[in-house]
């Protein structure tokens, strides 16, 4: 095509003008599309590409019912209903619908909230179920919107509250398993970065889409048996009410695995309404977080060390005068009158302090609690029975307690004489129960654990294995201590156990240290024992206490042990001996 324009003609001028305009467009387009390419691509990306966090679902928590996992903590979607008062056109219909559907979950002053036209966000109801939210959606109310969140649901109510802990408003686990195993429960959030349309639907257009799926938290199965837990809580509540105690704890362990079958504390709370709790102390699991002087329960440990070292037997005798001198101190028996040559079995039956100070002396030169004696006791108490150190149970808030080493100035003969009957040391109930489990199971110390396993994504229950981590005493020592505690219990409290079973235990009545001094009024009652058929099937430890009140091991704590023990023999279907 060859266009001929006459020089100076209007056509030529128009052509030149068009060329100039075209040149301006080309230059402008070059500037926008080439030079400013990155800037405008970025602007477009901000409009078109949406980044969305895919929230991981917090792991569920199950307990056991026999061998079957049952849910203790689930997740539920709940909805918050809010209004944009500027858009709401029929306030009466909104109020009527919300009140009708949400009931008690609706705010009381709906009329006032909807009248706040200067605001664009007014919460009208919280924690609605999905069905309730759907009913409100069906009403198609202008200006009413929904926010979905999840909350923890507790089908068993407040069962094992201190073991579970709770999840706060920020989604963080507090106390118990929720905090102790938070890393396994919380999972990992995912990410979706895609081009979206105006409705927010992700489109597969573009090369920079990112899809990283969320990894949900693990579903954990606790070793707690919900029936044993419920029984422990019920037995504890009944006895506390009966004796007027303020606090009480029960722990039940399977001595053959170290798995905790029940862990109950009173007073307690409901994790679903944790925000209504006024005394934060109820969140604590005293079984792991409240070290105390365990008292006479520890005599079984002293006896085990003596027997294992070969310096004493149950039938050996010593001269009981109801008093014994250690350095410049005089240690006396709480129960007096069994004087003369008596056996160590008798000392255990009547919980005579002098008998166990004598064992401590025999671990030395026979007459004194020497450094060698103290080192041996420390080896057993701290290194073998693992008292005064963290057990490593999968719960938040565990405290180690204290066992003073003989290498320290305070670890003198007087302290170790006191330690022989459970004073001068701070330990937790779990440490005592776990150590005692190893004494009655043949000498195998298992890592105390609250975890039975996990439920896999395919729904199968994968069990975690028990971990044997140390040998504490010989099998022969274990047999002797079982027999001694059995005789001690059946002699002192005949006829309280189901016939045909082997049940043994030891009472403890501990003084309470208040402001560095033993309180003249407060005592803690404890009972530590085991039960079963031909082997020890369970170990139970009970504690009862109250501020300004005196409680005894046999009178106040032991009935709880007996109640649970007799029930467990049936529940676990244990066959009687012989």
């Amino acid at each position, binding site marked *: 095509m060859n266009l001929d324009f006459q020089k100076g003609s209007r056509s030529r001028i128009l052509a030149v003008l068009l060329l100039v305009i075209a040149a301006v467009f080309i230059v402008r387009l070059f500037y926008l599309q080439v030079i400013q390419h990155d800037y405008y691509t970025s602007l477009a990306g901000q409009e078109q590409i949406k980044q969305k966090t895919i929230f991981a679902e917090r792991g569920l928590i199950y307990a056991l019912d026999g061998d079957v996992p049952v849910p203790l903590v689930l997740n539920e979607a709940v909805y918050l209903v809010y209004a944009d008062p500027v858009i709401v056109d029929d306030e009466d219909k909104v109020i009527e619908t919300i009140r009708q559907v949400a009931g008690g979950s609706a705010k009381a002053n709906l009329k006032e909230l909807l009248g706040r036209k200067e605001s664009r966000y007014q919460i009208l109801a919280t924690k609605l179920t999905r069905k309730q939210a759907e009913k409100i959606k069906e009403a198609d109310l202008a200006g009413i919107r929904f926010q979905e969140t999840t909350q923890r649901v507790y089908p*068993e109510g407040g069962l094992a509250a201190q073991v579970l802990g709770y999840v706060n408003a920020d989604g963080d686990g507090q106390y118990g398993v929720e905090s102790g195993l938070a890393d396994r429960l919380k999972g990992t959030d995912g990410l979706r970065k895609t081009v979206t349309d105006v409705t927010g*639907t992700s489109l597969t257009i573009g090369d920079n889409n990112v899809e990283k799926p969320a990894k949900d938290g693990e579903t954990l199965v606790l070793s707690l048996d919900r029936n044993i837990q419920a029984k422990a809580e019920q037995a504890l509540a009944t006895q506390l009410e009966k004796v007027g105690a303020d606090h009480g704890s029960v722990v039940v362990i399977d001595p053959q695995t170290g798995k905790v079958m029940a862990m109950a504390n009173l007073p307690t709370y409901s994790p679903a309404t944790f925000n209504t709790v006024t005394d934060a102390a109820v969140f604590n699991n005293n079984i792991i977080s409240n070290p105390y002087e365990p008292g006479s329960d520890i005599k079984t440990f002293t006896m085990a060390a003596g027997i294992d070292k070969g310096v004493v037997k149950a039938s050996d005798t010593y001269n009981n005068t109801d008093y014994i001198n250690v350095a410049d101190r005089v240690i006396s028996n709480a129960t007096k009158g069994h004087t003369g040559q008596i056996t160590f079995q008798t000392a255990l039956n009547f919980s005579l302090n002098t008998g166990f100070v004598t064992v401590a002396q025999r671990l030395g030169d026979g007459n004194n609690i020497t450094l060698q004696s103290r080192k041996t006791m420390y080896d057993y108490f701290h290194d073998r029975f693992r008292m005064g150190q963290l057990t490593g149970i999968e719960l938040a808030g565990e405290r180690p307690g204290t066992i003073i080493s003989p290498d320290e100035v305070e670890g003198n003969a007087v302290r170790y004489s006191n330690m022989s009957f459970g004073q001068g040391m701070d330990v937790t109930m779990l440490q005592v129960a776990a150590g005692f489990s190893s004494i009655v199971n043949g000498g195998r110390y298992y890592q105390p654990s609250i975890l039975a396993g996990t439920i896999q994504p395919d729904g199968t229950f994968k069990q975690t294995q028990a971990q044997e981590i140390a040998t504490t005493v010989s099998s022969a020592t274990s047999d002797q201590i079982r027999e001694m505690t059995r005789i001690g219990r059946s002699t002192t409290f005949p006829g309280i156990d189901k016939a045909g079973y082997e049940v043994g235990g030891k009472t403890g009545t501990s003084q309470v240290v208040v402001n560095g001094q033993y309180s003249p009024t407060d005592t803690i009652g404890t009972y530590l024992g085991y039960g079963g058929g031909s082997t020890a099937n369970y170990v139970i430890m009970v504690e009862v206490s109250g501020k300004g009140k005196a409680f005894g091991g046999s009178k106040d704590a032991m009935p709880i042990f007996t109640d649970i023990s007799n029930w467990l023999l049936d529940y676990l279907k244990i066959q009687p001996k012989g």
Partner: protein
Amino acid sequence: MSYQPSSSYSPRRQQNWSRNQNTTRFVSSVKLGPVAHTVIIALMITVLGLIYLTQATRTTGYDYESQKIDNQIAELNDQKSDLEIENARLTALQTVKDSAVAKAMTNTAATDYVSE
């Protein structure tokens, strides 16, 4: 009569071609100028563009289908969760204890074991 071979070889197709060359020659009366060519090229580009857009839109259509299925999955998962919670509540210890069946039960008087 004797047979004389031809001095030059002419293939059959060439012979046919030569023969058909003498048939009617067709000359189109429509002449395409440079503008028409430009328009045709523009039209072809437009058609190709439309084909591309159709394919791209089809992919986007799958995105909507996928989104719909994702929503259904989420909805069903929500329903499953609701049912699991309901099931857990109905089989909770306290619910079972409060049930009419449990209330009608009596404690066992004694348990006997038979040795194997």
